[in-house]
């Protein structure tokens, strides 16, 4: 990866609004063709970071480089952006809106007609082309907004919470299309709260909290570095063992099994011994990698 020039580089980027520091000293590198997850709690500074990348606001200090160049208006056309705060012109026909957005991204007139039809077909929205957007359901509108972000075939696609408000069927459709976009060589920055989805899609992760980066790297490596201190369990009896705070840090119960995060200094062996000693009938005991969800919560807690 070091040999290939990165798509996007942020170097010591800082942005304040008055006294409020939204992003402080953030450095990230996004490699070409990768899905990069930008995660973090509400108000961490994700949206401000994205807005600086798409050139809506300028950083107070630091450097942003896209495709090896400093940001310009012309480079904006190579980005596709689906903001978290998004809408459509309520009284405008879907086909016309998409054409307008394509024009704003400098897409050739004839080409855009063809592209619009192709994308509407892909999202099963062809019948809605002549409808006004106020007649569409929220999920449909969101798909139209997604089309507006990709219509000009951008090299970098930035999606801020693309799954919010979608039903499971459409979440799957959206995931599939994001992966399809990735397979054509696009770089994708994905900002989301939905950790399961981030885990499914992202190659790299950057986590920010309170305006600062708390974690970044390849998702695989991050999970590995968090060690094998999570255990998936299924057992009967042995009451009270997992409630011991010296043994177990957190407990997550799903419908038929329990996932625990071991307390620092406790090994999985110790837990197993204690369970067996207490007379529990253990039917499953498996060391698992911590989920991104667990890592997220732990990091946010650590950061106080």
């Amino acid at each position, binding site marked *: 990866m070091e040999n290939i020039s990165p798509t996007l580089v942020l170097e010591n980027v800082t942005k304040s609004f008055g006294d409020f520091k939204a992003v402080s000293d953030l450095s990230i590198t996004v490699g070409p063709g990768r899905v990069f997850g930008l995660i973090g709690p509400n108000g961490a500074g994700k949206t401000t970071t994205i*807005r600086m990348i*798409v050139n809506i606001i300028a950083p107070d200090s630091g450097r942003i480089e896209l495709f090896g160049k400093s940001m310009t208006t012309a480079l904006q056309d190579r980005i596709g*952006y689906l*903001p978290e705060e*998004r*809408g459509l*012109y309520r009284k*405008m026909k879907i086909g016309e809106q998409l054409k*307008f957005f394509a*024009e704003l991204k400098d897409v050739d007139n004839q080409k855009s007609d063809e592209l619009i039809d192709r994308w509407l077909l892909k999202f099963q929205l062809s019948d809605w082309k002549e409808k006004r957007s106020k007649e569409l359901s929220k999920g449909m509108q969101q798909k139209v907004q997604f089309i507006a972000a990709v219509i000009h075939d951008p090299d970098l696609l930035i999606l801020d919470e693309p799954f919010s408000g979608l039903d499971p069927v459409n979440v799957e459709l959206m995931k599939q299309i994001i992966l399809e976009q990735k397979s054509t060589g696009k770089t994708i920055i994905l900002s989301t709260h939905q950790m399961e989805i981030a885990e499914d899609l992202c190659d790299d992760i950057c986590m920010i909290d309170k305006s600062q980066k708390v974690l970044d790297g390849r998702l695989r490596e991050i999970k590995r570095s968090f060690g094998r201190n999570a255990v998936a369990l299924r057992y009967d009896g042995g009451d009270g063992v997992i409630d011991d705070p010296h043994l177990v840090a957190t407990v997550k119960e799903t419908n038929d099994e329990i996932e625990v995060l071991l307390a620092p200094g406790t090994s999985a062996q110790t837990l197993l011994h204690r369970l067996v000693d207490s007379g529990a009938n253990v039917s499953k005991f498996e060391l698992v990698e911590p989920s991104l969800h667990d890592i997220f919560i732990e990091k946010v807690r650590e950061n106080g």
Partner: protein
Amino acid sequence: MKKFLAVVKREYVQRVRTKFFVVATVLGPVMMVLFTVAPAFMAGIKAGGPTRVAVVDQSGKLYQRFEEALLNSRDEETERDQQGAAAAQVNSNQQERMKQAGKLGEANFDVEQIEVGNNSLDQIKAQLNERVRKGQLDAYVIIPENILSDGKAEFYGRNTGDIFTRETVKSRLSSAVRDERLAAEHIAQNVVKEINRRVELTSTRVSERGEEKDSGSGFYMVFGFGFLIYLSVLLYGQVVLGAVIEEKETRIAEILFSSMRSFPLMMGKLIGVSLVALTQLTIWVLTFVAFSLFGVGMLAARGVPINLPHIPPIMFAYFGLYFLLGYFIYATVYALIGSMVTTTQEGGQLAMPVVLMLVAGFYFAFPIIRSPNSSMAFWASMFPFFAPITMLVRIVTETPPLWQIALSLAIGFTTVVFLIWLASRIYRVGMLMTGKKASIPEVWRWVRQA
């Protein structure tokens, strides 16, 4: 540039295609006729029969003349002194028309003399009051004995709020008294008429082009144009405001900002909406011109003499340019306000005080007419918010040197561009600060921050 045009096109096409635009374009002139002609027409209608007036003439000399005056509406110019210089300068057709309108408004009367006989004044009044209360009489007038020296009389009526009747009675009685006084001095009626005849003043403008007949019509055109600017700002200012707020309300702004800078966006919106405005106004003006030409043609064919005001073509160019300036400078104020607020209602309230500056421009018109080359006239015609009115007044009264006209236009249109630039900055930062209303210090910070 292509993106700017895309914005212009969207704003224009989306608006012109609406049913609202079509309906407004058709109904606009109809409404205008209703609002201008209808009130004049309504004022001319007097419901019910003639006004019944009883007259108690204690002097015993005036009844004859007063009755005559009330019954035959007398067309004496002397009684219309108050209408003053402005009316006199209107060309003769117009003056004729005003007299016609005046006549329509005049009440007609049924006059009845009450003999005093041996009754005391109080008794007579009691009787008359009773009749007024019963509705047999509308009003009565008491002419005291010494009216010729005192010049005082009394008017009693059920509806003293009817100022038209009261004024008519007053002026007719005055003329009766005056005639009586003159008769007392043995001056004949026709001599009086001769003495009172007014002077006719023909005004001729001396300019670089030599002598030109000037009926003052240019001056009225300025007021007409001022009104047109005011009207279009009121009509379309709200539309500009709505267009600027639209992306905030629909939350599209962020998508737009990720594709283009805010200045061409703001400019595109202003131009797009303004083209809609100009389209509509052009349709209206052409309709108006077509109808008036048709009307003039009809009248001319029937042998009614009409002298159309003579206006040199360059005037039309000036009027056009200053109309555009006036429209744009105020429309831009709406755009600026739209960039600060989140709802149209809020914006409309904020814009009103600024639009009143246009009215202030009219106040400057009067001193400028009197001395069009004073330094006050100069500065008032350079200030972009007044220039559309004040400079036009100067042009029609005593055309200033070309450089002054060019300078005021340059200042004006530069201000428009500057305000749009300011609006675009405020808009961009304000939009990102979530949807709360901004205070002035905050707005100032945004301008510097963006």
